[in-house]
């Protein structure tokens, strides 16, 4: 083992994933450096959400490796064997990766503030007062300081998603995963969520965003990766992939959505 420069934040090599007998991710190689914003585009069913969920081990991969900040996800390597990690160890690694879901998945029986401090207090054993102070700052940042004591069901979709982002950020993650964060929103609410994500990207957060918002990808992404049928078709800067796609499948996809 030689000491190398800082490893990429996410490094996937030959990732395969089956659902039953159905191969949905067919060998993905991909690398995201610290501070990079990568947008994953592609038709639905192309395996992008599944791949995203493999990164924090919500789905187990069937072949290949994924490393986050140089560490294997879900396994420990010993000689040439992989040992499954215990639930507690997996949980610890997951706690450093924030995730935002299409359906928000806020905890409906807790207020907004309780949603934000639940994991820091329970998982990180932080003092409630500390977590609460940081939570209020985050709520201010996403423009919802006045909603701290509201219950999630009383909020609009856009507000709920902004709370969900703040909830993930309150764990101070080194990587944020977004799984179609605006797909369940009314069109007029998409903008407020993208604004928060834009702000986060400008702040230097490493982000992987599965999205259908081409305009957002063009403006914010450092890298755009186009996936189809479980493989990466092409990857590059927004100007390359969106402005001058080389692969016919990318061209036909962009022709339909633009």
């Amino acid at each position, binding site marked *: 083992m030689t000491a190398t420069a800082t490893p990429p934040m996410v490094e996937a090599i030959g990732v395969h994933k089956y659902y039953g007998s159905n191969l949905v991710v067919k060998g993905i190689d991909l690398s995201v450096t610290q501070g990079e914003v990568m947008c994953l585009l592609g038709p639905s069913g192309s395996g992008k959400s599944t791949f995203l969920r493999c990164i924090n081990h919500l789905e187990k991969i069937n072949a290949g490796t994924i490393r986050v900040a140089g560490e294997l996800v879900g396994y420990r390597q010993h000689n040439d064997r992989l040992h499954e990690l215990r*639930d507690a160890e997996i*949980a610890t690694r997951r*706690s450093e990766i924030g995730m935002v879901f299409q359906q928000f998945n806020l905890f*409906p029986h807790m207020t907004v503030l309780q949603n934000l401090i639940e*994991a820091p207090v329970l998982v990180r054993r932080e003092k409630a007062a500390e977590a609460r102070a940081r939570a209020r700052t985050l709520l201010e940042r996403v423009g919802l300081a006045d909603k701290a004591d509201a219950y999630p069901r009383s909020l609009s979709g856009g507000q709920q998603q902004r709370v969900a982002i703040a909830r993930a950020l309150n764990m101070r993650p080194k990587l944020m995963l977004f799984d179609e964060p605006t797909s369940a929103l009314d069109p007029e609410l998409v903008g407020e969520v993208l604004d928060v994500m834009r702000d986060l990207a400008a702040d230097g957060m490493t982000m992987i965003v599965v999205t259908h918002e081409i305009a957002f990808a063009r403006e914010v992404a450092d890298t755009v990766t186009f996936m189809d049928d479980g493989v990466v078709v092409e990857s590059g800067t927004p100007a390359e992939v969106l402005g001058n796609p080389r692969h016919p499948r990318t061209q036909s996809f962009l022709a339909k959505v633009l």
Partner: protein
Amino acid sequence: MKRSDPGVLGTHTAADVPEPPKVVPVRRYGQWVTTVVLLVITVLVIRSLLTNPRFQWDIVFSYFLNGQVLDGLVTTIVLTVVAMAVGVVMGVLMALGRESRNPVVSGAAALYIGFFRGTPLLVQLIFWFNLAALYPVLSVGIPFGPTLASGSANTLITPMVAAILGLGLNEGAYMSEIVRAGLQSVDPGQTQAAHALGMRKGQVFRRIVLPQAMRVIIPPTGNETIAMLKTTSLVSVIAIPELLFQVQAIYSRTYQVIPLLITVSLWYLLLTAVLSTGQFYLERHFRRGDLRPAEKPFLARLLARRDPLAQPAERKQV
């Protein structure tokens, strides 16, 4: 009329709301007939209660606070509480067992539920009571190895222990299905979000899944508790001095069968009313975060003014 936001209901002040149009409600003749019939029946029942001397109300109430009856009452309450506690604990364990990835565990849980739901409770009670006939000596030890401690089944399984085992283990089988339905009612996205935040399985269950499942679990559990209160009367057959057993002991001496049965019935009704009230507050507690209006109690509905233009019950944030 100024309306800044015409799309949103409930934002304008009272002065903005126009006079309601005159609306003639639909005449529901069927409901009137039903109401009259029910009122007549009610009057007849009350008259009979007051005029039939064989109810012997004086005797009913003279035994209401009788020492022997109150002793039985305490035993009934203790049995209900302990048996339900055993039932809830077994129910949660068996529900988790059923959902286990390990087929041996889920099979064992299914077997437990199948056995205790598949045989009559009365048979189970008598079985536990007579356990000594099957296993005269009960012992604790290493399987296939030495015995560490042992005792006679007759002294270990007292009638009270038999009653608690019989009622509690049987209840566990029913509770496990209630708990399982509750756990399945929680959106899988909740578990995923909690895992993604780094919470462990136990934490996800305790903090996220169970509190949300409680909304589904509480109402049928309230039902089960009320049923259990009355089912404890079954253990009178194995000579547990609970409420029914005590009044049977009294009326076998005095032959005042009907008034004493009314005495116990009144006690059961009273306890059931107390339990229902408790259930109401428990349900309200676990509704927090839910914006749908809670169901109003019976009296409030009876006294509510019939207003055809009434707004649906206002959204109240609990």
